[in-house]
């Protein structure tokens, strides 16, 4: 089955299929989640293991785990910084990651340490190239 995955234009992406949104222009606060393609590959998300607020994240390093009905995957930090919040709604409704990956299913908020790291992320066009054709 071929299908078109949504890849909103206003987001930045990683090759690990995460997305990042800057809260405002020049803001050092960003929101992070996984892409529609990633949630589709994982299947039903049933649990997320996330670190406490205040945890330091390093770009490219795993910081948490996302469990689906059939598998478990690591979450990788798209940028370095401090974790300043996680989506409490996912505790009771982890399926929001499947139903609304770019909105209600966001995963963590991060205060970035070095805004220049954002330049290393992918725009929507570049990310779309990484989605394998089914």
């Amino acid at each position, binding site marked *: 089955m071929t299908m078109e995955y949504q890849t909103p234009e206003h987001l930045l992406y990683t090759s690990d299929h995460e997305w990042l949104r800057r809260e405002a222009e020049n803001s050092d606060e960003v929101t992070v989640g996984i892409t529609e393609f*990633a949630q589709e*590959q994982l*299947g*039903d998300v*049933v*649990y997320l293991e996330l670190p406490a607020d205040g945890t330091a994240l390093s770009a490219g390093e795993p910081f948490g785990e996302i*469990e689906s*009905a059939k598998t*478990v995957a690591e979450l990788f930090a798209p940028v370095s910084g401090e974790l300043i919040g996680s989506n409490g709604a996912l*505790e009771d409704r982890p399926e929001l990651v499947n139903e609304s990956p770019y909105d209600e299913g966001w995963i963590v908020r991060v205060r970035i340490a070095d805004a220049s790291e954002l330049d290393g992320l992918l725009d929507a066009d570049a990310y779309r190239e990484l989605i394998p054709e089914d």
Partner: protein
Amino acid sequence: MSVQSSPDVLTSLTLRERHVALGSRFAPFAGWEMPLQYDGIVAEHLAVRERVGIFDVSHLARAWVQGPHAAGQLRSVTTFDVTTLPEGKAHYSLYCNEDGGIEDDIFIYHLPEDRWLVIHNAAHADADFERLRLVAGDAASEVTQETVMLAIQGPEAMSLLGRVFGPTIGSLEPRDCAELDWRGASVLFARTGYTGEDGGECIVEAGLAGELWDAFVSGGATPCGLGARDTLRLEAALPLHGNDIDRTTHPYEAGLGFAVSLDDGAAFIGRDALLEAEARPRTRRLAHLAARARGVIRTGYDVREAGGGEVVAQLTSGGHSPSLRLGIGMAYLPVELAKRGTMLEVDVRGRALPVEVVRRPFYRKPRES
């Protein structure tokens, strides 16, 4: 996220194109290319718990043993005394080895005129059929390729089956089996399954299978893949051969004593070892573990004594229960730890997740009002 690589040659299902059209994602399983999921494991699982689902389980091997000696021949290689099984009944049974270990778990259907149908797991199809051929010769014949097997499961399954096959189906009790006329052909039906729900399994000639599948799907059955089949059977605490039982486990420690007959005195492979095993106090028992904190406990994870104690077992099966919304699993525990209420820990990649020994099944059907 890795994409599974395809192994060498897989057998395709007769109804493959229908599964593709329904959006199935496939996975290799015991040499077959099987639907893993369609809309998603959780949605399919809940459809079976709340309404009705349909599974293509044609990978299960199907073999006939026929003739006046069939019952005795089956008795000599299986653990359950099928010679007492009335016509029109099906029963769970086992092939054991000389040590009493479980070589495979099977279902045996007794049909009129000395005809017996045996259902084998796909992974052991060849070895199992060879067992039958050794005792029954040409009276044993395999029909896996010529037929399709569909499971219809869920609280609404019997009413759907009644709409498709006619109201006579309603007179069948659990584990009854019968041959039904459908569109000029004979469909073998048994009120059995592997989900903990009501329903049945149908075996139909391959040429008519598409029509029968369509009748069930258009009648409201949700197509379900192996993913949901596994979560459903785990909630029902039904063992999976290769995981929870294998040639090193004996039926009594697995809680499968009901599938072994010793009282009739009949000889069968493994009888001596099983006589001894039955008389001996158990050292371990297949226990049922439910997580008492959020997280998923998976097959193969270590089970420890509480407080970071010694590893006492590995989970033979484990996963997320969509109905209970918690982690559940099974493990062979030393009998002193296998008591209900015992608190243990499962090592979830370095994190200790508390689990409690609970009674089986994990999921129980709500009482009909």
